[in-house]
Each structure stands twice: as structure tokens, then as C-alpha cells.
């Protein structure tokens, strides 16, 4: 029974993390899948969201680490909102100078902003505690739910051990529900946006920018809106992450890895499809978790195992790009472009 409990608790953890990645993947799908914007700084917006939420909803500075501001202990939803706003504002600043130029420039600028954000998080200890990171970020309603679960167990001391172990982790079930609700809300919203006239303009821009401009659409403004909205969704993902793990540091947001895995999720799931973005997050996170178990059994050191896992994901991406550029959900190989219509 113990291993069964372990599996259940692991699956809950797995689902929460996959859900957070699915939020990021949805944000990227709005930028890349709908509009064709090449953002390779996902990790930067993710980190911004996490830190903003932690500073808005977290505890005031403690004695060490060097932070002197932030920690307003405001409600969870306010923190999430702030995370979205800050990530969106930074995206606006990046989009303004680059979105009139070739796609390469946005790509380079997003690498730059992700790197700059990471440097600020590391160096500006007065705001971020530097490499020490932010701790004791509260999980919403944790006290209430945990108290009730514990009370439930206290009243029934004769329950089998495995039920006790599952009930004592009730909070994770609640957080899974919370992530699922937010994910579903974002999914519905983005799906509606995709079908709206606004969403159709984005797809027109993706397919043929000049034709969209010729039909009188302000291409620059639509691209900017998609970039900002997508970054806001990523900021929400960051906030969900911070409130779940409760401790964040610059090391949690390794620039290329954080960005890259989200890209692989989106491409594997099928670019341009919101359902595909979520499916891809689950599949890739599953592969990622499975390779963790496998490398444990191989005769490699820990850094070697970690490197091997990323290498596997990288090779997987290239294979998908060559063989199934439309992603797993694409019906056939007839569409040789990385983003199929739809």
C-alpha cells in the first residue's frame, strides 16, 4: 500500500506541474501558434510572474538575504494579477522596438530580456534576496485546508495508514483543483479569442503578414497585443509555480531550459491548437519525469544524467521538426511547415 500512496502523491505532484507548464504552453501558443511571434525568453516572463507574486503575496523581508522591500501579504488573486501585469509590461517594452522588424530581432531581444531578468534577480538583493531567493511564499488557503484535514484525521484515529497518508496531503489536491480551474479558464478564454475576429487577424498575420497589412490591419498593433497577452499568461504560470513550491531562486529559471521545454511541449502538441498545447505539456512533462527514473538506473553521475535528459528532449524536438512538423495531433505530413493552419 505504501508504494500505492507514493504513486498517488506523485501523480498529484505530476499533474500540478504539468498544469503549470500547460499554462506556459498556452501563453506561447498565443504568441507563436496564433501569431507567429518567436519568443525564446519564456523563462524570463515565467520568472517575472513568480517573483512578482512572491513579492506581492509573500511575507515581509526577514533578517537575512538582503531584501528590504516587498512582501505585502496581499491576497493570492491580487498577486496573480500583479504577476500578469508586470510580465505584460515587460513584454510591451520588448515588443515596441522589435515587432516592426524581422522575426529574428524579437527572438534575440527575448533571449536578452530573459538573461537580463535573470541577472537582475541574481544581483539586486534589495529586491530579490539575490541567489538566496524568496522563501515562505504562502500557498492560498493552506492553513484552512490543512487544519481541516488534520482535524479529520484526529477524529478518526483508527483509519488505515495509507488513507492517513493521502488525507494528510489534501492540500495538494486542492492546489491541483485550483491550477485546473485557472487552466480551464485560460483555455476557454484563449479558444474564444482564437475564434473571434481578433484571433482571425492574428492567424492572417501568421500566414501572410503583408496580405494582412494590405487588408488594412495594423499588423504591429495586433502583434504587440498578442505578445503582451501571451506574456501575461506566462506571468500567471509563474505565480502558480511560486505559490506551489513556496521557494524560488534564480536557479529555478534556467533561461534556455525553462524556455526550451515549453517550446518542445507546444511543438509536440501541435502548434496553433490550444488542446495540443495542453496535451504537449502533459506528454513532455511525462517524458521528462520518466527519463528521471530511467537515468537513475544508468551508470551515470547526476550531472551526466541531467545532461542526457536534456539531450534526449533536444533530439526529440529535432526529430519532430523533421518528421511531424505539425505536432502529434496533426493528421499527416502534408503540412511541412512548423505551424499548420488552425
Amino acid at each position, binding site marked *: 500500500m505504501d508504494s500505492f500512496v507514493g504513486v498517488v502523491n506523485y501523480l498529484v505532484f505530476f499533474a500540478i506541474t504539468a498544469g503549470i507548464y500547460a499554462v506556459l504552453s498556452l501563453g506561447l501558443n498565443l504568441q507563436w501558434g496564433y501569431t507567429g511571434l*518567436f519568443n525564446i525568453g519564456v523563462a524570463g516572463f515565467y520568472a517575472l510572474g513568480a517573483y512578482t507574486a512572491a513579492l506581492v503575496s509573500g511575507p515581509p523581508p526577514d533578517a537575512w538575504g538582503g531584501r528590504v522591500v516587498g512582501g505585502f501579504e496581499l491576497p493570492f488573486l491580487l498577486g496573480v494579477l500583479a504577476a500578469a501585469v508586470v510580465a505584460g509590461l515587460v513584454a510591451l517594452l520588448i515588443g515596441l522596438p522589435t515587432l516592426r522588424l524581422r522575426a529574428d530581432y524579437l527572438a534575440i531581444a527575448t533571449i536578452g530580456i530573459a538573461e537580463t531578468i535573470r541577472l537582475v534577480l541574481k544581483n539586486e538583493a534589495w529586491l530579490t534576496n539575490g541567489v538566496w531567493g524568496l522563501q515562505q511564499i504562502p500557498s492560498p488557503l493552506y492553513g484552512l485546508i490543512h487544519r481541516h484535514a488534520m482535524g479529520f484525521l484526529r477524529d478518526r484515529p483508527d483509519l488505515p495508514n495509507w488513507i492517513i497518508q493521502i488525507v494528510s496531503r489534501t492540500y495538494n489536491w486542492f492546489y491541483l483543483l485550483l491550477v485546473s480551474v485557472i487552466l480551464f479558464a485560460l483555455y476557454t478564454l484563449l479558444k474564444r479569442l482564437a475564434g473571434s475576429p481578433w484571433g482571425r487577424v492574428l492567424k492572417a498575420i501568421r500566414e501572410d503578414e503583408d496580405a494582412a497589412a494590405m487588408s488594412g490591419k495594423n499588423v504591429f498593433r495586433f502583434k504587440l497585443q498578442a505578445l503582451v497577452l501571451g506574456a501575461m499568461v506566462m506571468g500567471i504560470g509563474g505565480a502558480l509555480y511560486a505559490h506551489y513550491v513556496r521557494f524560488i531562486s534564480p536557479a529555478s529559471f534556467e533561461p534556455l531550459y525553462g524556455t526550451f521545454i515549453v517550446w518542445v511541449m507546444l511543438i509536440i502538441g501541435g502548434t496553433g491548437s490550444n488542446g495540443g498545447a495542453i496535451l504537449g505539456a502533459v506528454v513532455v512533462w511525462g517524458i521528462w519525469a520518466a527519463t528521471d527514473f530511467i537515468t537513475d538506473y544508468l551508470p551515470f553521475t547526476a550531472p551526466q544524467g541531467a545532461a542526457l535528459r536534456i539531450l534526449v528532449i533536444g533530439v526529440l524536438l529535432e526529430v519532430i521538426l523533421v518528421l511531424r512538423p505539425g505536432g502529434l495531433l496533426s493528421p499527416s505530413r502534408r503540412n511541412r511547415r512548423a505551424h499548420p493552419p488552425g
Partner: protein
Amino acid sequence: MDALARVPQLIVYGLVSGSILSLGGIGVSLTYSILGFSNFAHGDMMALGAYFALAALSILSGWGLSNRPLGPLSFGPGLLAALLVAVVLTSGSVVLLDRLLYRRLRHAGRITLMISTVGVALGLRNLIQFIWGPQPHYYTTRIQRAVAVPGLGVRIKPDQLFIVAVAVALAVLLHLFLRYTKTGKAMRATSDNPSLARVSGINTERVIVWTWIIGASLAAVAGVLTGIENKFVMPELGWQMLLSIFAAVILGGIGNPYGAIVGGMIVGISEEVSTAFVSTGYKPAVAFGILILMLLVRPSGILGRRE
């Protein structure tokens, strides 16, 4: 005043790191102008070169080739031979990568190619980490003393002079190659107008292979020079410079190899001089600041053609 007094010395350091950025930037610029996409794996190609040299150095010394310092330098014939081996192996690997991957994606469009280079970047870096581990490795552990340059009040290490000299020599060679050889002319023609080049009978696949060979060779040299300057090599060696390289390339005018040299020097010097005023940790952010400024003022770059 104290900070200002350090500026001349920092400019010297900037010339050294600018030389390395220029060599990296030339490759990025050539790939962009001839193949039409930004290669985000270029930094990791540099790291690959640096590690190939590391492996060659130890094999060659096993065969009895000494790495006893040449004159005032901190290294000797062993590393110079290893550098040549690294150039050959890196070029070979990159051409192979083009055959296996990039060629199959060429019809899929520029952005798909860019995505694949991001995958290659991460793949190469983790391949290096898998084989050599995340810890630093050393070409040589000799400490070298900087010597005063008479009359200028600055000091420079002989190794750093070597780095600048190699960069200048390679830039001149590249210029002669592009200007006077048949392949060089074909490359310039392809960069100006790929379709016109093809109908005039230029073998564009051959031009592409040459572009990779030149870009990868310069990347390998830049990687080894970085190892000489830093005194160690790590898997992140190239990725850490990628942003500065792109800033240099855009500053000089993307697609123009001469622009990459000008941009590399400006970015290198700005990054080093900035350390007198802001935390050293912000060097890449300085490059990013220059890049954004340039995009706002003149996106085509100093030597670039307006699109």
C-alpha cells in the same frame, strides 16, 4: 575619478574580448546572410571547438607533443596543434549537422530552422556536459604576468596580444577570401541574391557548406581563444557570449561580416568599460542595452543596408 582612471586598462581588456566576439560574430553574420537565419547554436559551436581542443591537447601530449610555453606565452606547440585539430573537427561536425538536420528543414522556413538551432544549442551544450562534466577544465595552469605597455599606462598579457593578433590575421584572411577567391565571390553573390546566384550557375549547396566551414572554424578558434583568456573552459562558455555576439552582429549590421568586427569591438569595449561603473555581473545586460538602443535608432546597424 577612480573609476575613470581604470578606463584605459579596461579598453585593453575590451579589445581582447572584442576580438573573440568579432570572430564569433562573423560566423553568425555569414550564416544569416547566406542561409537566411539566426543561428542560436553558434555559441555552443564555440564551446564544442574549445572542448575538441581540450581533448586533442591531451591526446597529442600523450603522443609526446609538448605544450611547453613558446616564448612569453602560457602555452606551446601542443595547444596550437590542438587548435588546428579543433577547427577541423568542429567544421566536420557542423557540416554533418547541416547534412543531417538543417538541410532537411531548409524548405520548412526560416523560423523552423531557428527553432532547430535552439535545440542544437541545448543539445551540444548537454552533450559536452555529458562527456566532460560541468566542472571547468584547463588548457594550462600556468600563471601569466601582464607586462606594461610603454607610454600608455596600461598592462597586457602576452596571451592577450596573441588573441588580438589571431583575430586580426583571420579577419584579413577572410577579407582576402571573400574578395579574391571564386568561392568567396560565390558566397557574396548568394548573400546578395540567392535566386539570382542559383540561376547564374552558382552551386548554392556548395556555398552553404563553405559558409558552415568558415563559420564553424572561426567559432572553434573563438572558443579556444576564450579558453586561453579565461584560463578554463566550461560547457556554458559559448552560450554566455551568445547575447554579446548577437548584439555585436546587429550593431555592425546583421549579414555584414565586416560589421560584425566593428560591432564586436564596440560591444567588447563597452562591456569591459561598464565594469568601472556597474556590477561586473551586468556585462551581458550592457550588451543587451546596446542592442535595444540600436534597434530603436538604426535597426540596420552601422554598416548595414537599410531594408
